[in-house]
């Protein structure tokens, strides 16, 4: 069976080489790998720059796909794409470090760097060098059902303490309704990363700071404890069909989640009627000057170290892809580039799906990304270990705070085996 599989894989590999040709045909060719969403834009650029001989290859958005391909190219010593889009941006930390050594440090003029939303490029900076340009941002906001909030007589919470109070009231007054969910990256990224819990603070390509005993982690654990117990915060993944059912039944009162939830979860999966959904900034912590956002997603562009004389053309192309206002204004998710975000927001503001214009909240969230959220090589374990520890504790009815040391040790193990020194 396995041999048959291997044969099929080999055959498909050969076919893909012949058919779509993932590798260079000539030395003067600029090879660009993008996902389906970015393909049209890349082809538009290729058509406008015929002299560069750009070849655009569409690749699947699956996590691990690009490292797998680059790993094989490293092995054969050829076939690297000059430009690659990462749907899973944390992979830049794999591609920039040994043994991959694929992503090139980018020379981007300060004027271009400064045109991005402040903090947007921070995760791309590893060991003081910039390795990627951010295409879009996925800051978390507090999504809420404006009609339900009004019907129930609740105020949109401004602080986490208020958020907790509403959760406890919902559990008493309207059991079955939810004010959030935590699972995998939607738990670790929405709640713990927004609180500043250091679980993936990349100091450099080989050093990372992890401390789940930090007060930023324990305060979130304490906040979620009663809400998990009274089930006003669920542990079902928001992309789970069972959660979509809850959404369709109108059981989601509030849902802290990334900026793209509005257009890609509430609209298509929850089928919420128009005029109900609204966005507010994340709640703030007592003693902090403003609310901070976590992050779940946001793609990046990377240039190859092997691009050689094509490097400049590659950098020009990713600069255009990330900062062209006309292009970015039309893209589906929140642009990382400030002027583009403005233009994008103008179009979104009149979207009748929302009860109120969500753009001010999104913009504020994008400008308030919690520092310390780095792109790390143990991204997958960062997600699964959250479920194996924190969610497992919730399911077993044990205290969340008690699961944090276990989470810490799993993160440390994963980081260490990914080649990091943990500080």
């Amino acid at each position: 069976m396995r041999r048959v599989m291997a044969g099929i894989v080999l055959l498909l590999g050969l076919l893909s080489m012949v058919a779509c040709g993932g590798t260079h045909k000539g030395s003067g060719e600029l090879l660009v790998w993008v996902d389906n969403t970015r393909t049209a834009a890349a082809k538009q650029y290729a058509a406008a720059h015929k002299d560069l001989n750009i070849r655009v290859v569409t690749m699947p958005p699956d996590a691990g796909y690009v490292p797998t391909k680059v790993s094989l190219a490293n092995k054969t010593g050829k076939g690297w794409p000059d430009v690659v889009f990462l749907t899973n941006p944390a992979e830049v930390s794999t591609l920039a470090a040994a043994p991959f050594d694929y992503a090139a440090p980018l020379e981007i003029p300060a004027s271009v760097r400064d045109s991005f939303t402040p903090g947007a490029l921070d995760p791309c900076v590893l060991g003081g060098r910039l390795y990627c340009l951010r295409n879009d941002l996925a800051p978390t906001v507090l999504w809420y059902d404006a009609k339900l909030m009004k019907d129930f007589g609740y105020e949109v919470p401004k602080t986490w303490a208020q958020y907790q109070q509403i959760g406890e009231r919902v559990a008493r007054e309207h059991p079955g309704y939810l004010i959030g969910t935590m699972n995998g990256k939607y738990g670790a990224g929405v709640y713990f990363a927004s609180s500043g819990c250091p679980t993936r603070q990349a100091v450099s390509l080989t050093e990372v700071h992890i401390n789940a005993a930090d007060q930023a982690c324990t305060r979130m654990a304490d906040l979620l404890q009663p809400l998990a117990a009274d089930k006003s915060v669920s542990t079902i993944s928001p992309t789970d069909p069972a959660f979509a059912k809850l959404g369709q039944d109108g059981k989601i009162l509030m849902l802290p989640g990334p900026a793209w939830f509005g257009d890609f979860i509430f609209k298509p999966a929850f089928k919420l009627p128009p005029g109900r959904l609204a966005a507010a900034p994340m709640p703030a912590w007592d003693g902090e000057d403003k609310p901070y956002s976590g992050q779940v997603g946001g793609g990046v562009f990377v240039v190859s170290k092997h691009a050689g004389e094509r490097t400049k053309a590659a950098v020009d192309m990713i600069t255009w892809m990330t900062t062209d206002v006309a292009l970015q204004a039309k893209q589906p998710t929140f642009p990382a580039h400030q002027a583009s975000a403005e233009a994008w927001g103008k179009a979104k503001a009149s979207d009748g799906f929302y009860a109120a214009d969500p753009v001010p909240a999104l913009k504020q969230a994008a400008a308030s990304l919690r520092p310390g959220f780095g792109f790390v090589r143990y991204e997958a374990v960062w997600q699964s270990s959250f479920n194996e520890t924190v969610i497992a504790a919730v399911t077993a009815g044990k205290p969340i705070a008690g699961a944090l040391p276990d989470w810490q040790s799993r993160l440390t193990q994963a980081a260490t085996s990914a080649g990091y020194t943990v500080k």
Partner: protein
Amino acid sequence: MRKSRRDQAGRLAVWVLVGPYVVFLVAFGLAPAAFGLWTSLGSWGEVFGDYRLGAAVRNVALYLVLWLPVLVLLVLSLALTLHARPGRFAGVMRFVYYLPGAVTGSAAALLWLFMMSPDVSPFGPLLGALGIGSASQALQGDGLIGVLVVMGVAIHAGGWIVVLYGALTALPRDVLEAAAVDGATPWRITRHVKLPLVRRYVAFVLISSFASGTQVFVEPTVLETSARGQISPTWSVNQLAYFYATQEGDFGRAAALSLAMLAVGLVAALLVIYKTRFYRTDAV
């Protein structure tokens, strides 16, 4: 003189028939394994010291303990049932059993994720009775093993049912008729005639499935792609080897772990050959 020429022709025929397989075995089996051995030098210690290996071995062992008996019992009982009721019904059912294995890749991932979601699954009431309210819950902790067992049985059973049914139809008719003439009930024929006669095939199913079960890869990988973050990407031993090569760029460790898995598979193969006397042609 004549005899030796026939011998020579026979030997030639053997090589013509076996030749292509040998070429493929060397090109895609032995040579890569030898290259893997070379690549793996110096990585064995790291692999056996890896904290993820213990967890992966535990996961696979638990999976095998649950999956193997369920698979073999199901395959055996369905094949015997089909054989007891031959005709159009058996033909249709053989095809039906084979179907789940034909759905692969991302389609399979979505299919199984929906199967595990009580609200949309045709098995919703069953999941509810087991206390499973969502796919997230079904995939959590050791619940994942249960999901993989169901997936693994559904995917692999069809092929083995066909094999075992084939073995049953090849049973000598006179023996079965003799038993019937002697007044044996269908149950006694099954229990005391058919079963002993297909014992070697059952052993073959068991040991081959053991070998493929230790290498479980497709099912957890398929689920991981659509329920990302809910399942460890290094859940099984083979996944860990794949992770080494593709996500850590370390072909040495990947080769070492793959060779270790090959050793497990080889032991299972040797068991098939020597313990079940599978290649003896004089029996039956």
